[in-house]
């Protein structure tokens, strides 16, 4: 599977930065979902997802966030979304995700909201 590139970086206070590049549709979402599940299996529940380089998302991609926010929060964590492009933010808005997720414009805000 290609078309989505995922990089991870450990940040202070148990926060994991997940950087995505490409698109999240019904073909590519599985890799992202597996990444999140692997982090949860390692008891890492504080995730900052950098969407700067994600050009497109469909409901399949959004579904990964929907399915994981509850698990993160039940384990004293959270999922914070950073810098989604307008086309991506639009999908979050259409699905009402903007009311549920913390969406910020820079890493500083993301880390502050995770503290």
């Amino acid at each position, binding site marked *: 599977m290609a078309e989505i590139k995922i990089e991870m970086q450990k940040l202070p206070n148990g926060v994991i930065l997940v950087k995505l590049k490409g698109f999240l*549709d*019904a073909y590519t979402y599985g890799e992202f979902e597996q990444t999140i599940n692997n982090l949860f299996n390692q008891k890492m529940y504080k995730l900052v997802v950098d969407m700067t380089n994600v050009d497109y998302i469909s409901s399949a991609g959004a579904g990964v966030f929907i399915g994981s926010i509850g698990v993160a929060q039940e384990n004293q964590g959270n999922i914070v979304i950073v810098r989604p492009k307008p086309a991506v933010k639009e999908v979050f808005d259409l699905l009402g995700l903007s009311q549920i997720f913390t969406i910020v414009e820079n890493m500083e805000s993301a880390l502050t909201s995770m503290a």
Partner: protein
Amino acid sequence: MNDVNPAPASRGGVKDRLVINSELKHLKLARYFIIRILRKVNVAPSDENKIVLATDEALSNIVEHAYEFNKSGYIDINVEVNPSQFQIRIMNGGRDFDMGKVKIKDIVEHIKQGKKRGLGIFLMRRIMDEVKYSFKNGQNQLTLIKYLTTSDR
């Protein structure tokens, strides 16, 4: 729903067709096909991502529910644009699957409960002005229509 107003003559009579196998890897190709037509007929950029998304969701649902991930099926995508509307007619030979039957009453509550099913159909219905479905002679036909306005450049 938008008001329908006269639109540029360049939109008149534009038709195009793409046939793909029922494989999720072809979604990207289908999205580019739709984007190319949207730009050719000068649909407003604010509608571009939405129409691409609605089409993508329809195709994903066909692969998953009509063909149940059987890759040997066909999906026949026909786009027709006239001054007042952008129409996408999608045919497939999978099992009878009426997307119109799937309804979400409260999207935020649905999502708060962690439910993912039905989101694509919700988006399709929210974005498009008309969503029509029929099953005839062993073929599903889904028609998505977006009304065009003078604001669509």
